[in-house]
């Protein structure tokens, strides 16, 4: 019988390995498949286990809303977080900090819980460029180059003025309504 013995403590928490399998979404798909699209600021972050997975609950103060029913606050769940002494991490899950500002493409399933579409694909940073104009950005998606039908989809990332993204979403939704 092989026995084991502890040789060193490796940290405060029980830690978690991680992985995710992503599927590429175009900006167009994110716009149409999202239930809500908001620009907002993170106001609070807390984590709690739900079944087998720890989720981080993120409260967002809505600055402007581009899609979805009006509400000044939105709460979303992001997989991963630290709760009850355990930390779970999922690749691709964003780590949101209070005070940060983003554009969120949100999706609600049957449970009614809001999540960022595509784990992090639907999260864009909002920052000011050197000229003081608001710019949204998201790195190019390296991994998923096929869509849900196994058809190749190239990706170039997102980097555009905030007003341009707002206009893109508006026009895309107008087309969808027609």
């Amino acid at each position, binding site marked *: 019988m092989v026995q*084991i013995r502890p040789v060193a403590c490796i940290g405060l928490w*029980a830690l978690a390995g991680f992985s*995710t399998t*992503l599927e590429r979404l175009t900006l167009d798909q994110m716009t149409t498949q999202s239930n809500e699209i908001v620009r907002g600021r993170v106001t609070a972050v807390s984590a709690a286990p739900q079944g087998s997975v720890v989720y981080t609950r993120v409260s967002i103060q809505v600055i402007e809303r581009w899609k979805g029913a009006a509400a000044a606050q939105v709460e979303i769940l992001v997989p991963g977080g630290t709760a009850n002494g355990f930390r779970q*991490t999922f690749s691709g*899950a964003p780590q949101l900090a209070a005070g940060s500002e983003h554009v969120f493409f949100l999706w609600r399933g049957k449970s009614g819980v809001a999540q960022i579409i595509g784990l992090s694909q639907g999260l864009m940073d909002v920052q000011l460029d050197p000229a003081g104009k608001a710019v949204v950005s998201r790195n190019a998606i390296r*991994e998923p180059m096929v869509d*849900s039908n196994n058809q190749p989809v190239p990706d170039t990332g997102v980097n555009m003025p905030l007003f341009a993204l707002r206009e893109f979403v508006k026009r895309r939704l107008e087309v969808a309504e027609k």
Partner: protein
Amino acid sequence: MRRAAGWVSITAAATLLQLQPAANGYYFFVHYLTRSAPWIPVAEKFDVAALQDRRVPFLIADQAPGLAAGDSFAAVTSQIRAAARAWNQVDSADVELAFGGYFTPGTQHDGPVIEVVFGEIPPGLRAMTSATVGTEAVASVTPGAPPFVPITKSTVVLNRDLNRTPSWTQDFFLTVTHEFGHALGLQHSFTSGVMATEAARATTKARPLAIDDIVGLSLLYPVRGGLAGSGVIAGRVTSGGAGVALASVVAISLDGAAIGALTNPDGTYRIEGIPAGSYYVYTHALPPRIGGEAHPGGILPPLDFSARAVPATGLFETTFYPGGRTFDRASPVQVFPGGAADGINFAVNRRDTLPVYGVLTYSFPGPVAVQPAFLAPVGGASFAVAAGFGLTPRSTVAVLGQSVSVAPNGVKAYPVDPRFTQIDFQFSFSAGEGPRHLTFTTDGETHVVPAGIRVVRGPAPSIGVITSGLDATGARTASLFGSGFGLETQVLFDEVLAAIRQASETLLVVTPPPAPPGHRAVVSVINPDGQSSQFVQTAPSTFDFDATGDWNFTVSPAQVAAGTEALVEITGANAGFQAGQVSAGFGSSTIQVLRMWNVGTNRLLANVWVAPNTSPGTVPVTVVNGLRTAVLPGGFSIAPANPRQIQLRGPVVDVANERTEIAAGAVGSVRLLTPAGDVPAASIQVLVSDRPAVVTGWSGGTLLFRVPVGVPPGPAVLRVAVGSESASLAMVVDAAPPAIAGIQSGGAPVDAQRPARPGQLIVVSMTGTPEGDLALNRVSVQVNGLGQTVASVAASPGGHTVQFLLDELTQAGTQQLTVAVDGRVSAPFALPVRTN
């Protein structure tokens, strides 16, 4: 037990320096036990020594996901189990995934486990896995075994809406296979194996694992001799003299193998488990992180002793050994069995951006893109379509090796969609089947795509029509008419293999697996070259099962005490259990079916292990028969350990040869635990299939008994009683062994008057041998325990004749001759031998 961050005892610290490092040569989830050099990588993994039979149970949530039309939870279950089987094929790894049945999410587990659950996953995400580990690195006391961080639970989260990814698709199967790899402790790799990120994967349902995946699992869960014949490449990656952390170093051979590793924070690396041969070695930076992702390459960086991430150094130029930015500057490194090619060092140049990376290739044998590109010199595609960052028609594309090359002016914009690049290939006559590595060069930077294309002999198989029929016994058959079939073609109903009865290039006749009444299964055929009928078919082929009645089952006994190995009988009603298609689970991490046997079509015997730490209570029983699944909620209960209970511990083996099949009349052995203390042999009663068996030995907890003559071959119930206490296990009674009827040499019988002489050809007449021809490798001959050279085996009236050369070193006197057929050993036969 948890301690504050940064704690380490003096004893432990002193021990660290003497520890063997974790097996290098792959992408594991790594912890370092120091904050600076020397870096001792410690990987996360399941503690197999704490598991029964090295098996990690995986449980599937009992809440079925939403399904596409024609899909079923049974089919989803079969795919998940098939994905687990893909890893179980790795013989060189000391771990196995064991189906433990369905469970209700939220259930507390008493032992290590992998949960497969269905969660609400937003669009853009297919699956995710998280492994919870302990707070302490532990070291095996087994000499040479590396320390590790034990995984206590892995959770695989699949989408609970599978409408867009039906279970029969290759995507679903490979995704689950990939996630199981993570659950076991493997990170993403950069060698196009199943552990590559989804889009960079070059494996298929027919060939789900690449050699890098196999080596990775084998290094994480090593078994003695598992990677025999392999060697090591080791060295250091530096930039400006400083070590480069988390550089990917890959060894590729021109025959298609690719094995990689990541560097330590000081730039050192060590790729183990490389099959002997000639390899080109290159290093490349982790690709830039994807949007929102915290780390480059989807790689979780290692954590130091303070649980702080040790990040990758950054981007640098891809460099080939011994130095150079293109493959034509590379020199091969020879890897010898058991040898280590040390000093394979790289001095790389840092850079701010990568001009080209993340290139993927596709072919279009049918209506959907197939990745990687499958190319057939005759009758198939000869071009691939590629896309990636920095790839343009002006990029230079090359194939490593000689037999396949890019055609002159063969790189151009893809006419159908100019965002993609078309690459035309040409093939020499010697171009054999298998993967080929590609290089893509843009602005002087080279990106290597291992197994970027796969050369095959012909088009993918295709199913035209499937018809249902009955054989002469009334059993259901299915006939598949199509093309591209072969003797090694496999037929899958959903993901369950069907037994093939007849095979030709255009027709396969199979026995469909058991399935629910009226079930419609998706039928696929896959060939050994990796191609599937799903490559070319717009709509999946289906097979409709008969609308027969439903089935159920009962379990006996319905209660077992913790810390017990026990026989559990599963009796079905209208079950139709099919050999090789049945498995069972108890929805618990600490209850495992060790072995199970079919007894007819409605009865199963299972030896079940209930670990001592199993909490008392009820668990569900799941029985899977092909595509049929039934659950008995709360059908089995665990009682607290009974200190007076006698217990049996299998396996039950033949004392003569350690086989688990024991012939009637032979002596079997089983461990018997008698907590009340030693008991006299006379107080032990043994029954085999309700027939009394003679106890022939009882010592040190080992019970020997003679299997009664007359017990029919097949699974049997072994029941042992001591006083009022009894315990049972299933065992297997073998057919009677072959018998030696006579011995001849030179046409005359061998006897005391005509003894055999060393070097003579001896002819043994055997009875009780299996009917038909016997291959030489099924027969062995021993004289006084010394193996002899079998010259021939031929069928004869009533049995077979076996000829062997009596070893020259055989001593004079009466020797004991035995002949074994398929491991069944004959009774000894006296062989007189004279040496002068």
